């Protein structure tokens, strides 16, 4: 029942996204191409270094490229499914717009899972990621197999969960401090811009920090290394465990924050509609 509802809502939001394309093609093309160009530019630097030095820290050129493609796919899935500030949840909370979510006749999580769905305008990054990954895989021998593809899809899903959880955890601060924390997700989310950086050269302490409390390495480097056989395949199980831990933490913080919001509301807007 809930699954049907989610698919139905995705279908509605998908149609609205297509309508935007038909209504204003120039703007649509501009935003989609821009999104893809910014993301590709963000990973181009790392690839150029890899191309110049024939790899980075034990990873070959195409292995680095695979990692960059992975990172683009993770960011692309987020921009496809969690646009309109859903990923930057502190803006919705901080601006008092959780009211709109709460009055919907459906669970909060269903609204948050569906209202940011932009399959056409948000897919530029995802398509670039699929293209880059496919090209990289075509140049790496003896890697692609059915179990590999299943593991790849699973890992990407786990990286998306970790990235979303990290953003939502920080975003929960906006329940208590709507003004001060309104843009906190912008900073937390911008860490995903660093997801294409390999951590091979980092010393142990920094590496562990970036694989736990500051999960930059979990967005692409850590799972890519495991998928390509450059680290233990058990690391995929570890990734799943960390994703589960993040999910539990975000559920705890977010539901507590939401309870606070339900009791206290938001004081961002004056009666006249101006924002404080």
């Amino acid at each position: 029942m809930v699954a049907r509802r989610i698919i139905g809502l995705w279908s509605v939001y998908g149609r609205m996204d297509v309508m935007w394309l038909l209504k204003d093609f120039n703007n649509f093309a501009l935003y989609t191409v821009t999104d893809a160009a910014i993301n590709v530019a963000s990973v181009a630097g790392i690839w150029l270094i890899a191309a110049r030095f024939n790899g980075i820290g034990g990873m070959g050129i195409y292995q680095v490229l695979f990692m960059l493609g992975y990172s683009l796919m993770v960011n692309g899935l987020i921009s496809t499914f969690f646009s309109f500030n859903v990923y930057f949840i502190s803006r919705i909370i901080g601006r008092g717009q959780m009211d709109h979510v709460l009055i919907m006749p459906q669970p909060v999580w269903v609204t948050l899972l569906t209202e940011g769905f932009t399959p056409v305008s948000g897919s530029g990054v995802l398509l670039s990621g699929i293209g880059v990954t496919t090209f990289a895989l075509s140049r790496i021998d003896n890697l692609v197999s059915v179990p590999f593809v299943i593991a790849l899809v699973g890992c990407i899903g786990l990286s998306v969960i970790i990235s979303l959880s990290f953003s939502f955890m920080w975003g929960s601060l906006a329940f208590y401090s709507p003004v001060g924390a309104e843009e906190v997700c912008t900073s937390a989310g911008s860490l995903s811009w660093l997801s294409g950086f390999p951590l091979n050269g980092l010393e142990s302490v920094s590496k562990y920090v970036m694989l736990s409390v500051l999960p930059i390495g979990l967005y692409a480097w850590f799972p890519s290394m495991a998928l390509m056989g450059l680290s233990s395949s058990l690391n995929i199980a570890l990734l799943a465990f960390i994703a589960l831990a993040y999910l539990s933490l975000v559920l705890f913080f977010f539901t507590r924050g939401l309870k606070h919001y339900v009791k206290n509301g938001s004081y961002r807007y004056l009666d006249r509609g101006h924002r404080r």
Partner: protein
Amino acid sequence: MVTTKTVWNHSMPNLRAHARLIRLEATSPMSGGILYFLGGYFVRFVRTLLLLSIWRAVFAQAGDGTASLDEVLRYTLVAAILWQQVDVQTTASVTFWEGTASSRFLRPLSVFGQYISETIGRWVPGLIFLSIPLALLSPVLGVDIMPTSSTTLFLFMVSLLIGILSGFAMDFILTGYIMVYLGNANYIASQIRAAFTMLLSGALIPLHLLPFGIGQALQWLPFATMASAPLSLYVGIAEDVGRMLLLQVSWCILLWLAAVYVWKKNRQRLVVLGG
């Protein structure tokens, strides 16, 4: 009779107004909340650590005949310390996006001058919260950022100043076109500009370390005069200092002529959107 005192009295109000603009912009970013305000600097700090670690990893693996690890680390850290100056982004595109640009045209001050003052003001928090801490942390990061000689320091400062001036002109040219032809999408276009300029100017990767001869070609373009030229001079990897400075001055003059022309031409066609 025009005396020094008269000239001083006439220019003082403008200087005071510009000083006010600088002060206003230096404090305004803090109004968005400390988490948002410091978050951006934190991300840049982490990015710098990652870049330094990448250089250590690639040099440990392969090395390079054209530069030493120390030079590349110094280049990267100085670029991170001077990130606002080697990649000048004025407040212009944001004000056009927000619709607040119109007030700049009503004030009895030069429009370019106002944007320059505002941008300098915006540099202050970045200087306090990222540049100075990074410079102080350089021994901990294992990077020696001290200049090799006083001559190098002097030439670097001249080159950096020319690069900053070129950066302002480049930003005004792009904003001048974007604001007229892309309407309210100018902000997103400026984001693309920022992403590519960083790559093409050598602010992220030293140009001579780019593969396929890309760096050789990019060294002649105006982007390189903003970051690559001063940073290469500082690190001591510039091949021909005289030619580099001459190229910088030439591009600076050309860019400013173009900036003045573009704004003069497009000013009457401007529609301020946003709000």
